């Protein structure tokens, strides 16, 4: 299925690992994900869950060890040329806008860079001016000769967005786009992202640890834990009636959640070189700890069987699982 009905992005069985001291860190350990045009998907998880690695793999900055990435129905090649071409269609926004801009380049040069590298046709100045204007920097000409240190953090992020959007990508991967910005400035950037989706139909994959952000702007949410997506679904459903114990625990500790008993997990997520057997969440899972798993008779499965369905939880798959939903 190619053409307009094909999903914008399809990630199938992707595995990405790193060689580190002490073994292989399985940062992305079998992920399936799909996205449509004009959709905003939030990829949430804590640090070390592999979401940034997955984002970079989708961008083509990293080649997966296994699995494939299909973009608009076509498989993404692994050679340099197809990856370079891919960059015309998928662009990235970074967490720290100050670091993402070369302090020695003017705003104009920063936005024009993509145009020059990809050899985009058209009047370069016009393209740059349009991109800046669409990112809310008006009048765009006044920004041409300024340097990053002369504008604010929010404006720098707009410049980064302009630099990405000038190439007219169909997919935007935003890695923590607002976490480095002041709280009162975040709304503006998020509003800009929504506007871009409305105006251009671009699809945005937002990588974040902030569930409130997901509630604010995302159509769908995918929750990642230790290299796997453990739950996925429409935002309203997932964040109000989470089913996976990890999602439930995560939501329970977020201060912005309306009334939920706190489930503070002990310890921190184990490192990706030593992923637990069976369900990777079982050592910290409240369902296991409270004895619920044993009562349901699934304790053995939690410890030994890798849950491959979604939500990735044996307790959820049980028809008569107590404490589920609502």
């Amino acid at each position, binding site marked *: 299925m190619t053409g307009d009905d094909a999903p914008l992005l399809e990630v199938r069985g992707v595995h990405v690992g790193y060689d580190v001291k002490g073994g292989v860190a399985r940062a992305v350990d079998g992920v399936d994900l799909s996205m449509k045009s004009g959709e905003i998907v939030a990829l949430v998880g804590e640090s070390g869950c592999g979401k940034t690695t997955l984002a970079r793999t989708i961008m083509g900055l990293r080649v997966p060890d296994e699995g494939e990435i299909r973009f608009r129905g076509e498989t993404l090649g692994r050679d340099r040329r197809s990856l370079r071409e891919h960059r015309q269609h998928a662009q990235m926004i970074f967490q720290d806008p100050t670091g993402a801009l070369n302090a020695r380049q003017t705003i104009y040069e920063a936005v024009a860079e993509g145009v020059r590298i990809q050899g985009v046709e058209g009047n370069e100045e016009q393209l740059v001016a349009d991109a800046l204007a669409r990112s809310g920097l008006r009048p765009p000409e006044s920004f041409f000769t300024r340097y990053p240190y002369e504008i604010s*953090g929010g404006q720098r992020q707009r410049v980064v967005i302009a630099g990405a959007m000038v190439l007219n990508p169909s997919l935007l991967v935003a890695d923590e786009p607002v976490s480095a910005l002041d709280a009162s400035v975040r709304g503006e950037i998020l509003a800009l992202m929504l506007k871009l989706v409305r105006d251009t139909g671009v699809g945005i994959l937002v990588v974040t640890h902030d569930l*409130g952000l997901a*509630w*604010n702007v995302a159509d769908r949410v995918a929750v990642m834990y230790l290299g796997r997506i453990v739950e996925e679904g429409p935002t309203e459903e997932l964040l109000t009636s989470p089913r996976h114990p990890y999602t439930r*625990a995560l939501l329970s500790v977020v201060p912005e959640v309306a009334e939920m008993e706190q489930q503070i997990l002990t310890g*921190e997520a184990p490192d990706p070189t030593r992923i637990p057997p069976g369900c990777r969440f079982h050592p910290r899972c409240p369902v296991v700890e409270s004895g619920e798993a044993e009562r349901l008779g699934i304790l053995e499965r939690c410890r030994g069987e890798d849950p491959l369905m979604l939500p990735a939880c044996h307790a959820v798959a049980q028809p008569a699982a107590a404490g589920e939903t609502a």
Partner: protein
Amino acid sequence: MSTEEHFLRVRDLHVTYAPRGAAVPAVRGVDLDLHPGETLGLAGESGCGKSSMAAALLRLLPKGTKVTGEVLLDGEDVLKMRPGRLRAVRWTDLAIVFQGALHTLNPVQRVGDQIGEAIRLHSKDGRGKVSTRVGELLELVGLPARRARDYPHELSGGQRQRVLIGLALACEPRLLVADEPTTALDVMVQAQVLRLLEELQREFGLGIIFITHDLSTLAELSDRIAVMYAGRIVEQGPAEQVFTHAAHPYTRALGAAFPIIGDPAFRMTPAGVPGDPPDPRYLPSGCPFHPRCASAIDICKSIDVELWPAGEAREAACVHASGAPVATA
């Protein structure tokens, strides 16, 4: 120590940096009160002066910084203390917990030694005693005692934050000032650290000043909230009320940046304020928030509003705060 008495009273605090001549007014007249066992949340973004204020409480600002006003710790003015007395007071009465970034701890010193150093500066205990105490402190903050032998980079972010809390408690202070302690941490680790602080507060009757830009965290944790903007406090009051029924437009904007999950009013409606937090060197005329304020009227450009009553035990520095605050949610 009577409970009616304020343990900490800050009056008309001004902090002005003067690097190479140009004066930068970071704090422009702040009044604060804190009772023992109370948690005061201080909310604000970059440039509002909150970190400068925290450092001023212990006179930890660089040489040449002008600090005026009063910082009364149990009636004694910290700003007027002699160096010997100040050193004795530092850490034993008031301690600071910083962000647990890698550079807050000495990277080439074991964490146990760093905690031990704090203890040894204020007591004459022998090595054995100090080491025992270090072990106790680590266990108190939820780390196994043997971690004393680790270097900062061998610990995770959450663990480092715990070490910093342990370090702050080393001399049994009565007041803890926590400056953005959980900002860089994951949500789950943040919850762990916050719960730890709550437990410690209950156990030791600590007063805590919690400084952060995350208003929603403060709503849960604090008894009272004070919101800072451009070097001044623009709103003060009971935590729950300030968060849900903000009287100052800036507080409202800050609150709106943290959407309440489950509340349909926050779906697809990112709310932000145009512009950026002001540079303390170039403050707007009149009310410093007026260029970004949706409710600004003519008078806001010329009058810099003082804090005035906006409800019971509440104050706000806004012309609209007539005692009838507007709900945020």
